[in-house]
């Protein structure tokens, strides 16, 4: 077992894990952050997307021991003081989720986009949303929800 320490949504976590434990599993099993769902464990579906030092990553393709000292953000960190993040509100308003399983991953992608690429074009936004799989919605409402938060492209 190896000890590793990192912050999740601003809180420091110190955990003991087997080196083979992925970040996804560590978040779910040890950091009490079950919101990040696991869809494939081989890095294709993007369901497990979280932000690592501000950048989107697939948490099933990272070992927990690799994020020593780093800062992770998960879906649990989006709402603040009981108020939903505007993306979460937009997802509800635009019916951008059905079963909800892929939703945390898309929300984190969306959060990254809103914070780092507010001027993203429609084409680039579709590319970004194409990073993750959804089996329920057909994607259009997810794109609409993120676009609603971003505003219309210049």
């Amino acid at each position: 077992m190896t000890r590793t320490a990192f912050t999740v949504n601003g809180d420091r976590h110190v955990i003991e894990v087997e080196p083979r434990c992925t970040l996804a599993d560590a978040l779910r099993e040890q950091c009490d952050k079950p919101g990040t769902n696991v869809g494939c464990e081989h890095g294709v579906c993007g369901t497990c997307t979280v932000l690592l030092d501000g950048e989107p990553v697939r948490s099933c393709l990272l070992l927990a021991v690799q994020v020593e000292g780093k800062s992770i953000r998960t879906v649990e960190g989006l709402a603040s003081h009981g108020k939903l993040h505007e993306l979460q509100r937009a997802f509800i308003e635009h019916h951008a989720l059905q079963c909800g399983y892929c939703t945390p991953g898309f929300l984190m992608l969306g959060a990254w986009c809103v914070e780092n690429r507010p001027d993203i074009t429609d084409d680039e936004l579709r590319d970004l949303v194409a990073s993750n799989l959804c089996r329920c919605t057909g994607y259009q409402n997810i794109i609409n929800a993120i676009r609603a938060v971003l505003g219309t492209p210049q």
Partner: protein
Amino acid sequence: MKAAAFEYHAPRTLTEATELLARYRDTDVRVLAGGQSLLPAMAFRLATPAHLVDINEIRELSTLTVERTHLVVRACVRHSAFERPCETGPLGRLLARVVREIAHYPIRTRGTVCGSLANADPSSEWCLVTVTLGAELTAIGNRGRRAIQGSDWFKGLMTTALEPDELLLEVRLPRLPEGTLFGFQEFARRAGDFAVAMALVTFRIESGAIVDAHVGVGGVEAVPRRLELVEKALNGRRPSANVYSAAADSATSALDPLTDAQYDAGYRRDLARTMIRRALQEASPAT
């Protein structure tokens, strides 16, 4: 799909890393950089290393340096470092163009250039770039460094010149002269999927004629390579749709494509020809 257990090492210096590789060279020891290919393989237990040497904490491996004649990309530089041109010349724009086709952004934030080169998947865009542009790779181990030409790096399907106790330190990509035109075309089933066939072309136009053509094809054979036959069919000729077609056609006899359950050799051959032709058009549109 949990990986099998292994011993994990996170060296802080290059020397530590190479010592670890030397110490464990007779076991199944792997280098962990981006992990975007290795970790899935481990999840399927297709790879079951006994030791994992994580090089992400080695500061000197994260540098991307623009030298006068070369771009020097060290082992931990991520694909995403190239999404905005990393230098002002044609190479920067070429890499930005190519990198966009690699998987998806969240993979590109972790996956590394050198990791792709060491993995040597035939569908890897970086492998094609390395071979087409004539890059130089440097392997490092306990016994020191070795320089290996891009064309000598790929030995066979997913096999490189790297020794078990070495890691790929850096790749030096030659910067392209101003005025170099380039085109890149890849065929994949969906956005971000593995390339079934891809072509990268670069050339300049001097006095209205094509010079110094580089034409590389990847995804089609076990290893990416330059096609001299196609380059010969371009050099000295004025760009035109006919010249492009004829040059692309000459590729078909030169290729020995892979065959698998989904794609037969004939299809890949045709695809390669189409990708070459379209890459040429992208470099310099001609009627």
